[in-house]
């Protein structure tokens, strides 16, 4: 076994790189407690917890929060159904056009969001579809399919085919095999996929700005606050909420699929 140790320079560069990835987010937390509401002065001149109460009482935050939760929930369910179906088809069989289909699935997140957004916007313009919750969901579900698909297909490939043959030999029909053999084995991978899809949808802003019209999801609300700040620490409080709502599912997804070759989150 090759057992050399990393040089000090490499260790410092690697650990420094990891810190670089994490420290900026901690600042968000710090600034939620500052007493200074008009600038981003560092260090904060004083600390207070009043902004959490102020944010709670701001009436303009709640409707975007509800809308974001609703969009993320519906998109996740749609992506769960569609992603699992396509994973079931792609996991074992070889057929004509398979490569093209796998390209089609990843295209919505492989191409820049501005293209997905602008494409949907063009389609709505041509077909004269008015903006609604459903125009947002249409976009979100499309790029969430690949997240569920990735998780499901990796787990299906790992499952031994003999398992399903054994189930059939023991007299189970296709639906019983799905219910009693496939689903229990697939469950945690699907749950992980759902959580990642939820986190992705809840946080999405680039495609959403093209498909939302005048509606405001929580990320769009935050974007407006970033461009025209009002009470800056309130934006920080909302940022913490957005961070928590995406962070917890991601962590859960990691623990659900840890140890396998297909640990969730490898590709966004």
């Amino acid at each position: 076994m090759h057992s050399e140790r990393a040089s000090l320079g490499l260790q410092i560069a690697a650990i420094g790189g990891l810190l670089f990835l994490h420290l900026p987010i901690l600042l968000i937390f710090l600034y939620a407690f500052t007493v200074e509401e008009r600038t981003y002065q560092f260090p904060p001149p004083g600390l207070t917890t009043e902004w959490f109460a102020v944010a709670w009482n701001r009436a303009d935050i709640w409707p975007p929060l509800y809308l974001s939760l609703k969009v993320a929930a519906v998109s996740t369910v749609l992506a769960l159904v569609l992603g699992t179906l396509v994973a079931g088809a792609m996991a074992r069989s070889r057929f004509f056009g398979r490569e093209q289909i796998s390209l089609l699935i990843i295209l919505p997140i492989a191409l820049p969001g501005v293209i997905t957004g602008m494409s949907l916007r063009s389609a709505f313009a041509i077909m004269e579809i008015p903006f609604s919750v459903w125009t947002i969901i249409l976009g979100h579900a499309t790029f969430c399919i690949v997240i569920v698909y990735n998780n499901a297909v990796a787990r299906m490939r790992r499952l031994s085919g003999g398992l399903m043959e054994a189930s059939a030999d023991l007299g189970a029909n296709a639906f019983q095999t799905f219910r009693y053999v496939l689903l229990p084995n697939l469950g945690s991978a699907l749950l992980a996929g759902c959580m990642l899809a939820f986190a992705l949808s809840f946080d999405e802003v680039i495609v959403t700005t093209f498909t939302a019209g005048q509606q405001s999801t929580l990320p769009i609300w935050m974007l407006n606050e970033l461009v025209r700040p009002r009470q800056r620490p309130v934006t920080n409080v909302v940022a913490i909420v957005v961070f928590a709502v995406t962070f917890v599912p991601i962590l859960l997804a990691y623990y659900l699929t840890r140890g396998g070759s297909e640990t969730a989150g490898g590709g966004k």
Partner: protein
Amino acid sequence: MSAVLASRGLGDRLTGLFWRRPNLLLLLLISPPLIWLGLVYLGSLAALLVQSFYSIDEFSGVVVPEFTLRTYAELFNPANMDIIIRTLLMSASVTVGCAVLAFPIAYYAARFARGHWKAAFYLGVMLPLWSSYLVKVYAWKLILAKEGIIGWAAGATGTTPILEAVLAIPGIGGNSLSTSFLGTWMVFVYVWLPYMILPMQASLERVPVSMLEASADLGATRGQTFRTVTLPLALPGVIAGSIFTFSLTMGDYIIPQIIGTSARFIGQAVFQLQGTAGNIPLAAAFAVVPILIMLVYLALARRAGAFDAL
């Protein structure tokens, strides 16, 4: 099998059918997602292409639904070419920045991290990758503001003149870091860095240790082994990562809007043209530019074997 056992109902009869005709099951599974992706996504992409061949009536501002290349010709106006070239330069420099910063992290995680450290590195890269994009951008607005932490740190360590000298560089400098190209570049590098680390790490992990040993046995120093064995084998991973950093930078319009100068990037042009300006054909034509560039980029990457590293 339905021939052997007595059928117990619809479920069994369908199972028998699927057994005799596996393609029927495949078709049933794949049609709903295909119809969705085909209609919603490919349909929209087609709509984008169609719109980009329309033009806008200069006097009434109404979209004229007739085939014309005039909208594409508008892309070659000096002002629009500026936007495209600026975006390409930014994408290229962000990609280089990400590659340089990502390499030590990926290299360490792939070759030296074991056990708990390995998990820590994996989570340490994956959590920033997935955590909220807007929150990350917002964090940098706090950091780069004139009165923010970098200005404070420069003042505390007496390096304010250096910061001011950097900001005085024409082209990339500005009034403060949060209103300069340098600031835009830093935020881009930060936000897309995890997308570079993961494929890089994956390809580094696939470099067989036996090859490194063989190289050492043949008398190569660590530096020579690194340059002639590790780097060439890791290159597909770097290219795979560059696909993400390049494409994501090219299509982003939030970061330059929040941090940077008033000079526009492709994404901003698309957003403003379809929104306030109401010029959907030109916005669509602008959106086709990144698609074409990425197609060329992907073709080159495929030649370099980057897809095996994905």
